[in-house]
């Protein structure tokens, strides 16, 4: 396994933090929300559901998720933290590998350097054109870690199901097409199926969000979405479904690797149903991956404590402008909110 990327994470984390010695750190932060890039087109929703029967044939299930958070601001930039987790379920037991948190001090001066170094460590010759801005950097660094974790799973799991958080849309700075193809190719080569669950979607059918379309059919089932053509350079590496896997009003957009035959796709979801726990239509393995990498307020305080102890940062509580101006109506900034 190529461990260049996590090594670079550590090196750059430590290197960037050396430049924050004895600076004041402002705590108030705005959290970064991911705005998923959805392909926009007049899509078709096949209202004939694909019924599913759970298959209990023993199958390894693995999931990946990453998370990023802004810890505070210095005079020169921001301090962010990134963490990722792989979770797997094998023979009724869950296990995990959690990487991080990696803490970076990002300034205008080192933003390009940090990102490009990390990107080079992993993407080698692909996609060097898009340097993120200040607001995007936490998500971008988290995406780099996420791709690396996905690659790890695609190269180590055999005959299993690999669950991604999000869609299989490629062609973005976060998800270079070539690279996503390689991940999916590696997974297929080991007889794995990649299933990507999106918690939120903007895809609409007849004006309704596709996951809100309710059929009389009893779950579990899939609804196939067709005629989905994203605007270039975005491409879909998976076919898109609405997955309603348990009773109740919970449904998710599910992207399944295009290169997999329809029968195998259905079989993969059925194996997932037979091997993982489901609550609110969402697989437990992916939920655990999310839970394990999410930063809690306690951890944010701990990281602030770490940098103030180790690098002598003075923590300053910047006045909350929303609160100052609007009193109890000023609810713009939340402290230590988890992402």
């Amino acid at each position: 396994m190529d461990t260049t990327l996590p090594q670079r994470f550590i090196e750059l984390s430590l290197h960037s933090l050396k430049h924050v010695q004895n600076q004041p750190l402002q705590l108030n932060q705005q959290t970064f929300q991911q705005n998923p890039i959805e392909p926009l087109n007049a899509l078709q929703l096949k209202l004939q559901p694909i019924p599913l029967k759970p298959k209990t044939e023993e199958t390894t299930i693995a999931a990946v998720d990453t998370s990023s958070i802004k810890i505070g601001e210095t005079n020169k930039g921001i301090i962010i933290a990134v963490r990722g987790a792989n979770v797997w379920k094998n023979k009724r037991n869950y296990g995990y590998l959690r990487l991080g948190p990696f803490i970076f001090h990002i300034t205008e001066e080192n933003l390009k350097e940090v990102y490009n170094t990390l990107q080079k460590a992993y993407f080698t010759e692909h996609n060097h054109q898009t340097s993120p801005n200040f607001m995007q950097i936490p998500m971008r660094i988290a995406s780099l870690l996420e791709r690396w974790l996905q690659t790890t799973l695609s190269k180590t799991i055999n005959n299993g199901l690999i669950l991604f958080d999000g869609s299989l849309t490629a062609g973005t700075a976060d998800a270079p097409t070539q690279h996503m193809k390689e991940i999916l190719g590696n997974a297929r080569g080991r007889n794995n199926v990649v299933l990507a669950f999106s918690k939120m979607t903007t895809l609409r059918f007849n004006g309704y969000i596709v996951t809100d379309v309710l059929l009389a059919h009893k779950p579990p089932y899939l609804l196939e979405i067709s005629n989905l053509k994203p605007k270039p350079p975005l491409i879909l590496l998976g076919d898109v479904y609405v997955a309603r896997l348990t009773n109740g009003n919970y449904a998710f957009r599910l992207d399944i690797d295009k290169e997999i035959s329809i029968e195998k796709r259905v079989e993969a979801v059925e194996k997932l149903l037979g091997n993982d726990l489901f609550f609110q239509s969402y697989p437990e393995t992916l939920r655990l991956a999310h839970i394990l990498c999410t930063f809690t307020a306690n951890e944010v305080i701990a990281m602030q404590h770490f940098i103030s102890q180790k690098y002598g940062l003075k923590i300053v509580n910047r006045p909350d402008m929303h609160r100052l101006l609007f009193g109890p109506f000023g609810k713009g900034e939340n402290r230590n909110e988890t992402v």
Partner: protein
Amino acid sequence: MKLYRKEGNIVQILSFPNETVEKGDYLLVEDAEAGKALIVQVIDVQFANIPGVLEELLRSLPDGGELLQGEDFDPLEIAPHITYIQDSRLLICKIRATVENENLSPSSSWLPSRSQSTIRKLTISTLLKLAKVDGNLPIALGGTKESSLLTIDASALDGRLNIITGKKETGKSHLSKLLILNLMQYKATVVVFDLNGEYGGLGMTSDGKRNAHYNKIHVLIPSQNFKVALKQLHLHVLLNILIHALHLPGTSAREFRRIWQFLKEKDNLTLHELGEAIRNWHCNQNVRDALFSRYYALVNSGFFTDNIAEATLLEECLFKAKEEGGTIIINLRNTSPIDRQTVVEYVLGKLVELLTSWKLKAVFLLAEEAHLYLRETYWDDIVTRMRHFGIFTTFITNQPDTIRENIYRQADNIFLFNFTNEHDLEVVSRAARVDAETVKSIARDLPPHHCLALGKVVKDFPMVVKVKALDVKTMGETRLFFKDMN
């Protein structure tokens, strides 16, 4: 440690895992700029309300309650910081005093700086020096948590009303014995109402040999070596016995007074003559029956005698104790409840008599489970009248609700052992010399043989002490059925 907030006389202090602070500890909150410091005592230790802790705990147990197995690659070693933050604690502290130029004042009207104040632990020995808890008559109670000795001054017990309370087998009697031996060393006269016969061994070491106090310990067993002749009694003492212990009605008491005067004039105050006088007295038959029933109660108690030679021990012991200090232990173990009251009425009457006539200077009275033999009216007497005569009482009980509320309010010193029962703590917390929170919070967690000393002996700085061991013979042990089987 950081000062977090203050409300009334309670301050909250944030403490981190590397700072070991426990309930009962004293802290000094110093504000260098103000030139003052607050002395606060920790009365409770809580987890600090850290945001996200619930998520953190839930995250560690997502697999059906079992720990999730996995590996963490934490290159910057943030995990110890998370634990550090998670384990930070909030110390709930009571303000006890302000120190300014090494002088203590009970004021809490100022507020130290939250950002500039430094907080450090105040050792008990330093506090004792600051509070000037010393004197010429030291009594070493035992060790504090810091292994320093807590020494009180015997004069802090002089003229005071004290309470020793705690649940069973926590060490109340042990502390009482320690106080008795120390008071005796300073030539004090001590009288003990020993309900379970456990003080008799004070004059002997644990292996049964005589110790230095042997000659100063006088054990009086009613009806055996402790008897009273009618001639020695004052009428009012006997009337108190008849009315309060034997419940003689008022009319009969009047007739008894006449009979007594008649016999006294004839110098014929003997049990036999008293019986004859009642038999031949011209009075209503019901009155005669009432007097006879009490007369036989007195005779059957075995406590009364016509032999003066048999009836001088109490006075002898008291006078001996007056000279060189000593303890008179009234062993009430095998005495019936009515006889017990009779004996107590007599002893208290005798003490008042000797004190009023200045034949005795003062007496330290230790009363175990006093509700079992002390009549209702004595409670008020003890805290008001008797104190002025020179009877300084220490009540010892494991049922705090048997002592009246006004006793708690007027108690000068309380030695509080462990209580877990909410009701018991509620009762003790009515004491005027301490706040309810301190009592409830600290007493609940006291280990056996540890006591919370409150009041004048510690200059109103509540202190926890492990009562030191004594090499005296243990008596009055609970009889056990399975003792030899294990």
